């Protein structure tokens, strides 16, 4: 790892300006989990880490807080850790998908340092991207090694020209819960947009996964107030139960009204270069009476657009199984034994 200095500035404006004005050698640090990985692996050698944690006062409190805003939305600051989020008891039960996802990521030690913002903005775990010697599409090269290489952990949906899967475990549940993100722009104003717009797919630009310009800072995610009876669920499958990245994840949100499903949202994780919303599954479920059979058909519909590579078609039945489990949990339909 290279030598670097740490810069601590007390306001968001100064922090943002410090990163924006500069050479690529200045980067923002929050939890520092993925950043330090990059530095240790020789993928990134910044000479200055600008500490988001140094921001104080009301700005700092807002970055670290979870609170209900005047419009009824729940605002989760970007510096809230996954550990805090998963253990936050005042969160409505409707947001179970989000707290479960936060509570299942990585290890307790990492969850105590990793932040919500960092989780959404981290770079992919693709082993070609992470190999210091390889210049792949994501690093300005001309090919995605995964396409013909070992892509067991790669995308089955929305892939090409890059086949990474988005590494965030919060991305899919936040998508299912209709969250929006709040971003500090370089002119000092903020913009808000649906979380789906935060994520950049490889056809737009294979070199980045999010829509933030240099110097822009993700401040918070905001969740709409859940209507009565809203339920959500998150499921994931891993090769290893202690500290591993998911092979696939499913997040759903729905409510039951008069025996039928309403407000259904389905989002899948670790199957596509972005958190993957499934309008096909949602359309099949909306307005229908919940049943094991319906869920099975919805899971098949969710993977209908899948285009697996030669070695990762297993993710199709896998994510189908996870989506079925999540639907059973959210709709309280007992799982078959």
């Amino acid at each position: 790892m290279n030598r670097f200095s740490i810069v601590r500035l007390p306001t968001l404006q100064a922090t943002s300006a410090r990163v924006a004005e500069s050479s690529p050698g200045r980067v923002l640090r929050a939890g520092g989990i993925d950043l330090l990985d990059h530095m240790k692996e020789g993928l990134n050698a910044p000479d200055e880490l600008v500490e988001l944690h140094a921001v104080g006062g009301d700005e700092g409190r807002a970055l670290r807080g979870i609170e209900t805003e005047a419009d009824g939305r729940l605002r989760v600051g970007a510096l809230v850790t996954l550990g805090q989020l998963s253990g936050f008891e005042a969160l409505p039960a409707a947001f179970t998908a989000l707290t479960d996802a936060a509570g299942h990521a990585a290890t307790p030690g990492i969850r105590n340092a990793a932040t919500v913002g960092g989780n959404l903005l981290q770079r992919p775990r693709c082993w070609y991207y992470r190999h210091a010697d390889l210049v792949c599409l994501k690093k300005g090269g001309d090919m995605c090694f995964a396409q013909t290489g070992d892509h067991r952990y790669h995308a089955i949906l929305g892939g090409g020209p890059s086949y990474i899967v988005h590494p965030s475990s919060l991305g899919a549940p936040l998508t299912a819960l209709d969250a929006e993100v709040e971003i500090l722009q370089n002119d000092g104003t903020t913009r808000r947009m649906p979380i789906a717009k935060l994520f950049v797919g490889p056809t737009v630009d294979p070199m980045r996964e999010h829509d933030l310009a240099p110097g822009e800072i993700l401040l918070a995610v905001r969740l709409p107030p859940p209507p009565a009876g809203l339920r959500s669920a998150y499921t994931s499958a891993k090769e290893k139960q202690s500290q591993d990245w998911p092979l696939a994840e499913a997040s759903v949100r729905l409510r039951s009204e008069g025996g039928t499903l309403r407000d259904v949202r389905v989002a899948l994780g670790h199957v596509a270069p972005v958190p993957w919303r499934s309008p096909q599954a949602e359309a099949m479920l909306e307005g229908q009476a919940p049943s094991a059979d319906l869920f099975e058909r919805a899971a098949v519909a969710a993977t209908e657009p899948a285009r697996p590579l030669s070695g990762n078609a297993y993710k199709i039945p896998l994510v189908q199984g996870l989506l079925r489990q999540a639907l059973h949990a959210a709709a309280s339909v007992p799982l078959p034994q």
Partner: protein
Amino acid sequence: MADVKHTLSLGFGASIVKKKVSLPATEARPWDATSELKVVGTEVPRIDGHLKVSGQAKYTFDVAVPDMLWAAVLRSPHPAARLDSIDTSEAAKQPGVRAVIEVAKRGERLLFAGQDVAAVAAKRPEQARDALAKIRVKYETQPYVVETMEATGERAPVVHQAPVKERRTEGDEPGAGGGGSLRGNVRPLPESARGNVTQGLAQSDVVHEGVYTTPVQTHSALETHGLLVRWDSRKSMTVWCSTQSIFSVRDEMAEVFGLEPRNVHVITEYLGGGFGAKFGASAPGSRLGFIAGQLAREAKAPVKLMCDRHEEHVCTGNRPDSHQTVTLGGRRGRLHAIEVKSYGTAGIGTGAGVGRNAIGIYTRCPNVRVRAHDVFTNGGPGTAMRAPGHPQGAFALELAIDELAAKMKADPLALRLAHDEHPVRRYQMQEGAKAFGWEEARERSAQGRERQARIRRGVGMAASIWGDFGRAKAARATASVMRDGTIEIKNGVQDIGGGIPTVLAQIGAEVFRRPLSTVVVRYGDSEYGSSVGSGGSQTTSSVTPAVRNACEQARGELTEVAAAQLKVAVKDVRWDDEGTAHGGGKSLTFAQVCKKIDGEAIVATATRPATYGHEPMAFPGGPMVQIAGVQMAEVEVDTWTGVVRVPRVLAVHDCGRVMNPLTLRSQVNGGVILGTSYALMEQRVLDNDLGRMLNPNLESYKILGARDTPKIEVLLTEVYAGNNNTGAVGIGEPSTIPTAAAIACALFDALGVPVRSLPLTPDRVLTALGKVPAPGSNKATLARRRIR
């Protein structure tokens, strides 16, 4: 001196027999079934446990000496290349750099990504690494092959252009190794056979054939390979090394630098794991000993070289993979023929055999033939890894037996019992089945299959075979009784983690009948007398008998001191359980006797003779005890996601006389954990096109974590083998042999279809269940087909 005759009570359980042995007079009367021991065999916590958990224990990684430099090694990024030119002049000028050496020669063929090219020593580790980037190397890249079966093809690039020299270590199974001549990349290993397998298969009424594969596993010791070299004069050096064989480090450094072995002082106070890859000063795929020693010589300063995790994965050894075709024949309900044909790659190294399960366990099967082959590929060399070959062979054979049993509608336990002659293993199978609830569990899994349950459970079992490879005269131990009553035991053995210092303290406490706190054990240092490497599960059975002999001799001399004080003949001195000497109606405490020792101490040194007995059954091909073991595993599998969990494993093992049940269980736990990890997740991934390892870290090279670890029950079947004077037999290796096999058999029981490739990951389970669309269906993009 004339030999002395002893009659020993040997055997296990209720089957104790009397045997006569004739032993050198220097050999203590062996402990047998009639011996009543007070300290040996009891649960003594590790004497250095508090040092380890409090961080006071200093591992090689922690050692620092004044003026020490740090080394870093430049490694070839290419799977095959010829080194055209190398220029280190710029690197030598970098800040902090004190020495730069070329390790590879111009014109040399470099055969795997990770091979040594050059090295730097600098004041700080990051200076050394930065300087590597300034070394200019020109490579001429060459064709390469990294996939095992692809390398067997006629058109595959040839890895070795000359006959291959075997690199054998104390970690290899004695008697294994050797091989025929090289053809292309394939070298046959010695065949083992009995009966006529071709005829046996022809006579069979049920035949099962399957192809079973296992991945390359890396040792992944928590402490990486490395050493610190300090030249003490032009002809002597001190070496701190993370090694499982202090004396192999001494010999390698002496040979490489032309020194007398006695002038190479090697210290390994604590060792963060080895698993077979840490013999000698160097790693199997990197000349670490030469590099550190040469840099230290050129820089005229001590040099420390520790591998990083990437290097540890690519060039410090691994367990070879395997591709095994197993054909079994059943005839009239019996196992009539076993044929195994295997190909495996140890990269550029040798030793991809598949162990002895097939030939050595089911000895009532009349026709057996095992033909294994080393396949050379452009990968880092394999080396011994905890029971070399055995877990691979056990997995293929035991799962195949279960598949045959299913075709024959036989219970797999009954089929095994009918063909295994080893009385201890048969007992273990029967007792294990009762303790595990085998029959009820098999019934439950059948019901789950019948109902097509979403969550299935299954149970499986597998066996292990290993030998007592304890060596004669390899360990020379010193026992001293000090005038202050302290007992000191010295031997230059290293503790690989099994807890040998604790066991040696127990031997001292036992012989002198003194409290453990009065016994000091000095170890981990070549100055403390020759010893064995911790490989082949031979440490305890090689060292404890030598220590006991030394203690008994010292105690004999102490008895003479007591006799003189008590004014009685030596034979009339009686020691009681408090260590007090009685004779002639008088008594002297241990302290009182010790005060009368002439000089500083009584000092005795001793070794042990060759193994003299092997109750109840010998290891095939040698006069040594055969060690038996059986494990049973339960799996739970989610058929929607393919995720396999292992809730419990029962490990039933024999390891001769149990020295310390705590350290023994700890070793068995380690073996089961390693085996479960091998079953469920471990695998080195080399990219076929790039020839490089894709997961050289501990994130995507997955190793079992706390949440994945089964509940492990250990059942010990103590055997009085009459092999040496303590009756100790090893356990390190046997305890990991059957685990993955038992888990794979359990998964077959749960699903009703086999998963014939390790690790048993969700993709393979879903494929076995027929749920994965074939390439091309579901509009799958067809990239080229790959072997995984």
